[in-house]
């Protein structure tokens, strides 16, 4: 009967450690380094022969380096006769470039949702949640937002960009009523944060009392942090699919939802051959 072995890439060792802790395991021994010519070198430090291997690597930071590290680790485990190798990629890189190529894997993919963890956070941290309004910063996120709104039994709104003429700046139009409500912006990722900061301004000027932003992946590249510091958010909440410690030092509005238990539970269920779909609507304790 194969055992679970969890290895961490260098992108997010903190999350990997949390996952291992929840499963009551030690992280597997692996050395990842770079030669002087910048080529990545990976050496697995223990036997994986016949084991069920999970490699945790997030698509953040130096994405190409982390991606190459992941590929080499997977390759090394396969060559070392692991029984099965599963990649755990909390934030999947290059996801935005091929919006149309969603189905290009030939292997099983479990795309987990942060939604249950987000709902839990809202109920525990926003006192006025029963009277709040969930807002999508663009038309594409409508489905995501209505799903949350329905589960909380609250209203939703969305913002869409209207381009009147070519060469004119897009106008942001709010669809829905946010007067005297606490508004919660929900999106899947926050990169340069231009869109959500504009959205927050829009909501305040439309009468919202407070604005929260809840985003699954906090990439925060370029001017993101300074934009958030200058915007009118009550809090900007992200999950820990991407390490946030450094950024939290520069921005006190950032709060983090820990999703390590979702990943740990997914690993446990996959290993035991149990259904993973339970995790689509429940947060493991």
């Amino acid at each position, binding site marked *: 009967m194969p055992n679970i072995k969890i290895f961490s890439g260098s992108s997010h060792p903190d999350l990997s450690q949390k996952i291992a802790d929840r499963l009551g395991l030690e992280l597997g021994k692996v050395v990842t380094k770079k*030669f002087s010519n910048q*080529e990545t070198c*990976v050496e*697995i430090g223990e036997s994986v022969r016949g084991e069920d291997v999970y490699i945790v690597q997030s698509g953040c930071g130096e994405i190409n380096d982390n991606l*190459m590290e992941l590929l080499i680790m997977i390759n*090394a485990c396969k060559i070392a006769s692991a029984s099965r190798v599963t990649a755990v990629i909390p934030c999947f890189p290059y996801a935005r470039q091929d919006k149309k190529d969603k189905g290009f894997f030939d292997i099983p993919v479990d795309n987990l949702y942060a939604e249950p963890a987000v709902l839990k956070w809202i109920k525990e941290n926003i006192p006025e949640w029963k009277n709040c309004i969930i807002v999508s910063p663009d038309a594409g996120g409508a489905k995501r937002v209505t799903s949350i709104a329905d589960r909380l039994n609250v209203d939703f709104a969305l913002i869409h960009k209207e381009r009147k003429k070519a060469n004119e700046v897009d106008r942001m139009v709010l669809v829905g009523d946010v007067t005297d409500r606490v508004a919660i912006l929900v999106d899947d990722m926050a*990169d340069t944060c231009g869109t959500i900061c504009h959205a927050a301004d829009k909501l305040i000027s439309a009468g919202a009392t407070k604005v929260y932003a809840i985003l699954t992946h906090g990439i925060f*590249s370029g001017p993101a942090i300074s934009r958030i510091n200058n915007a009118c958010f009550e809090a900007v909440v992200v999950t820990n699919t991407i390490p946030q410690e450094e950024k939290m030092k520069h921005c006190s509005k950032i709060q983090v939802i820990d999703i390590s238990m979702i990943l740990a539970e997914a690993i446990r269920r996959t290993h035991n051959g149990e259904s993973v779909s339970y995790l689509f609507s429940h947060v493991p304790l």
Partner: protein
Amino acid sequence: RAPSSPPPEELTPPLYMNHTKGGLVIFTANSHASSRELGKRIAERLGVELGKVQVYQEANRETRVQIQESVRGKDVFVIQTVSKDVNTTIMEMLIMVYACRTSCARSITGVLPYFPYSKQCKMRKRGSIVSKLMASMMCKAGLTHLITMDLHQKEIQGFFNIPVDNLRASPFLLQYIQEEIPDYRNAVIVAKSPASAKRAQSFAERLRLGIAVIHGEAQDAESDQVDGRHSPPTVKTTGAIHPSMEIPLLIPKEKPPISVVGDVGGRIAIIVDDIIDDVDSFVAAAETLKERGAYKIFVMATHGLLSCEAPRFIEESAIDEVVVTNTIPHELQKLQCPKIKTVDISMILSEAIRRIHNGESMSYLFRNIGVDD
């Protein structure tokens, strides 16, 4: 089909290009400007403009490649040289190749003068054969042909299921020796370790010179250390093993002190190798050769990686000149160390591209290449 052109002893642009129905287009997928130099030179020799493409990194460090002309039905050549961000270089190339494939290019030939991760081509402990992974990724992305130069191990060609042309830089390096080293006839070709002895011999044969081989301590550079798997496994306890089944252990190799096999006294020493990266072993070899009486020391290598402090170490060492080709951009290193000289090999790459596009034989490019080169 166009008739073969006469042997290109002297190539003057523009060359005769067979304009097939689709034509050809040459791209460089490098985001760093210095890495595009070789591509520009090759395009000039072929009398074509480089294809329009934008390659850059977004704020979140993802690579983006945007091709700005049609490649449908064309023979595409992607010239990619390795920059200091090797993983990004690889991604740029893969994305470019895949984009061309999904845009219906007729064929996609990768021109990678230095094939990255070629030093990781053997099993080390519980490692991965990264060159094989590279080969699989490139073929999967849509590469239909590969042109490269002086592969670290020729067996890497076998990792690909597409044709691979492993061109040689040696004719250019040999020409440099004959034209730029005045008393080269008093030289000895040196292998800095037994591993490069074959290469040294193939150079020496063509110049009608003798060879010398350095052997001894300070040999095991990390990259070529192959300990593979211990087979049979090292015996830990004797308890469970029946005495008659004990398998004899391999005697560990002795590391003798440094010695030079061959005479370099009163001669010019020319150390030849395929790659010069970490220069510790070259510097140590030069010291040894100086002690044994060599009065001038050259290092000739195809690929000048020259990472980190290499230029400084060379400057401070007993080496008189380091000659590398332009397979890898090294302008920065040249500024730091005037002992570094460059040999331009764009001619053979452009000739290879021309012949492949016209469907002509490549064998002319491999004449005068010994079996051991």
